[in-house]
């Protein structure tokens, strides 16, 4: 098993204040890692930093370039486009196919020609998750993917993750519910940055 993602001694900050410090984790092919921790503990910040959306203030992230597909609370779904148009757009952006399979996996075939604005919250969420399948990327970095999904849809999602892992992918998921996956869990609580821990706080220069 080769390692896809390696995080060492990472300190992440939000609004100039360190939230998590000294985080180390790794993710290998076919592996999923579940992030746990109470609200506001910095899971989202950690995921955004790993996805490259914000700079870390210390530590190292080594990852194959262009391997991460990121999905968060906001789905990036356009309500005036139909379901299939939304998916085709993203598949075009990533230059990967798989629109049909994605629709199938999340049982969206029947809704394909409906404008996304007419979907229920759960259906919209499914559409947002099906986007992952058209990215063709190996590491899924997911922030609370199961919000507003019912039990059947959660099972659908777990199935998609399992298939992704079986195909040699990996997933880093922040969630509160049990997905029934064979996965390690990673609790972020012990890494909570403490005042005066030094390293990397943006306002440190002023103290």
């Amino acid at each position, binding site marked *: 098993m080769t390692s896809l993602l390696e995080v060492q001694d990472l300190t992440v900050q939000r609004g100039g204040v360190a939230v998590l410090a000294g985080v180390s984790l790794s993710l290998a092919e076919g592996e999923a890692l579940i992030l746990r921790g109470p609200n506001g503990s910095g899971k989202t910040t950690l995921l955004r930093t790993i996805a*490259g959306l914000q700079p870390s203030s210390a530590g190292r992230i080594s990852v194959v370039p262009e391997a991460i597909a*990121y999905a968060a609370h*906001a789905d*990036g779904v356009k309500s005036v486009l139909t379901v299939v148009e939304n998916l085709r757009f993203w598949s*075009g*952006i990533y*230059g990967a196919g798989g629109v049909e399979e994605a629709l199938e996996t999340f049982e969206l075939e029947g809704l394909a020609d409906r404008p996304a604005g007419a979907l229920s919250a759960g259906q919209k969420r499914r559409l947002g998750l099906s986007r992952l399948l058209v990215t063709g990327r190996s590491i899924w970095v997911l922030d609370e993917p199961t919000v507003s999904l019912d039990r059947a849809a959660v099972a659908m999602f777990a199935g998609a993750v399992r298939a992704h892992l079986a195909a040699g992918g990996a997933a880093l998921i922040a969630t509160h519910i049990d997905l029934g996956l064979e996965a390690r869990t990673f609790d972020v609580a012990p890494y909570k940055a403490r005042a005066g821990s030094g390293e990397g706080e943006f306002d440190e220069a002023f103290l």
Partner: protein
Amino acid sequence: MIRLLLRDIVLAVRAGGGFGLGLAFFLIVTVLVPFGVGPEADLLSRIAPGILWVGALLSCLLSLDRIFQLDFEDGTLDLLATAPIPMEGVVAVKALAHWLTTGLPLVLAAPVFGVLLNLPGPGYVWLVASLALGTPALSMIGAFGAALTVGLKRGGLLLSLLVLPLYVPTLIYGTEVARRGAEGLDLGAPIALLAGITLAALALLPFAAAAAIRVNLR
């Protein structure tokens, strides 16, 4: 990239309001000016190029905040930032989409509004030419302003405040081309300068705007 362009145009058309609103606003400005300055044909034909340019500029301003705001709110911008296309390309494409849905209709409609303001005969060609050359710069500068203010809750007013001073050179050379065209004067210098500013804006501002967006996303 083409996908993004097509999607933005489809979004603008389906969401309505895109170019329709800009054009309506342009029309209203053009109609209001004679009420303000009086109906004398001489006066109107003298100030027509300037009025049309200011009107086009204001209608362009109207839809600027939509360039990035909606994509920022629904998370699309996050996803685009992690997608395999450079942010500079995203900015340039979005500015192009804005121009196609706002600037281009203004360019095409300007002669019609020119009639309302008694624009002299030879002025039409040069009015259209100056707008065609200048409005891409307006869209690109506007995209830069929109990128700066995308993270702000009420960025609209600030956006106008930031962008309008940046529009000064384009406006000056643009109206100069249109005015000299209408009066049949030599217009080589202003048209070259207008084109120069547009090219410079198109070449440099995508980088500044992309940097601003990356800052706003983190």
